[in-house]
């Protein structure tokens, strides 16, 4: 932007841009750290990265600015989201600290480190800057290319090798080699019988016709829920919606009506206590009923 060889101050426009976007970037960074859900963190980070890309552009690093958007925000953050999707939400998302004193130590170190860095930068007393006018004279991309393919070509080649290795490594890591013959249906059923766990097929989720969503466990004859009817991932995330109280209370209500209709004494209503692993949602739902 600035074509002068050595200047002390940037344009006002850039200053305004810095103060506004810089604040947003900071907020984004803080959100990345403090958001409870990983998805929210990822989105905040993406925002911060885009703002950084803008900063790159405004500082004369055009190539990097574009790369930042394309590679970082576009590719890397998408990868993060993909993985998030695969992994899903876990209990690790909880913001509750489990290590004693970890937070205090982290705060102390962070604060100390930040102060030191800032003090160091302040100490450096850079009042003027050269600007990239001269370096970018033939165009930023051409100048970078000249450097990369001349002085840094060796490092560049190595980085290429690294990337390929990383790609192969990721594949190797995520790939599961089957080292035994896949079990046939017969073997599976035999094993089920041998282990005596669950011989029949798993129950399907949903309660009658009213709730057929995948996250709602089926009910057993006594009114309790059959957890195995819900997908394992959902269970791991704790996204199991227990609606057992609703039909139970409906039945009880119906029975009450029938009793009163028949003029008999209302039998004591049995209210099932929520399961231990019932998610907060299901708890609140139960309470709402």
């Amino acid at each position: 932007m600035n074509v002068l060889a050595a200047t002390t101050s940037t344009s006002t426009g850039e200053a305004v841009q810095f103060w506004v976007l810089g604040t947003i970037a900071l907020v984004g960074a803080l959100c990345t750290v403090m958001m409870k859900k990983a998805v929210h963190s990822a989105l905040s980070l993406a925002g911060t990265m885009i703002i950084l890309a803008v900063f790159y552009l405004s500082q004369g690093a055009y190539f990097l600015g574009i790369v930042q958007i394309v590679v970082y925000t576009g590719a890397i953050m998408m990868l993060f989201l993909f993985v998030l999707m695969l992994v899903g939400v876990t209990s690790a998302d909880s913001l509750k600290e489990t290590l004693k004193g970890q937070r205090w130590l982290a705060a102390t170190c962070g604060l100390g480190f930040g102060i030191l860095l800032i003090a160091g930068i302040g100490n450096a007393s850079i009042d003027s800057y050269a600007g990239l006018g001269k370096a970018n004279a033939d165009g930023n991309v051409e100048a970078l290319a000249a450097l990369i393919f001349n002085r840094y070509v060796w490092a560049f080649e190595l980085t290429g090798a690294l990337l390929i290795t990383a790609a192969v490594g990721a594949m190797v890591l995520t790939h599961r080699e089957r080292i035994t013959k896949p079990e046939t249906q017969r073997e599976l059923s035999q094993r089920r019988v041998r282990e005596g766990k669950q011989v029949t097929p798993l129950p399907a989720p949903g309660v009658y016709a009213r709730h057929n969503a995948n996250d709602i466990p089926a009910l057993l004859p006594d009114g309790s829920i059959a957890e195995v009817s819900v997908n394992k991932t959902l269970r791991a995330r704790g996204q199991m919606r227990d609606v057992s109280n609703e039909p139970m209370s409906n039945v009880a209500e119906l029975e009450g009506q029938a009793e009163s209709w028949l003029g008999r004494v209302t039998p004591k209503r049995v209210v099932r206590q929520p399961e231990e692993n019932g998610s907060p949602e299901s708890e609140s739902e139960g309470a709402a009923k």
Partner: protein
Amino acid sequence: MNPVNYLYLSALLFTIGAAGVLVRRNAIIVFMCVELMLNACNLAFVTFSRIHGNLDGQIIAFFTMVVAAAEVVVGLAIILMIFRVRHSASVDDANLMKL
């Protein structure tokens, strides 16, 4: 405004990222915080490039990005694998380093 302010911003972002690494338990978020730290460094490099008027800083930032990309790929693959085995993405669960 002096470009030094970018450096201050970079320092703050780095510190926030570092604090995130220390505080969060979800491996993916920890990873994101690491990315944040790398980005903070990149910002500093780009700013130095501008202050000194040569492009070496940008080159370094470029390489950092490439390496970061490689790191993310491998790192996420590892997280996935661990999740598959342990059904958890918490960094605290992988405490096999304990004596």
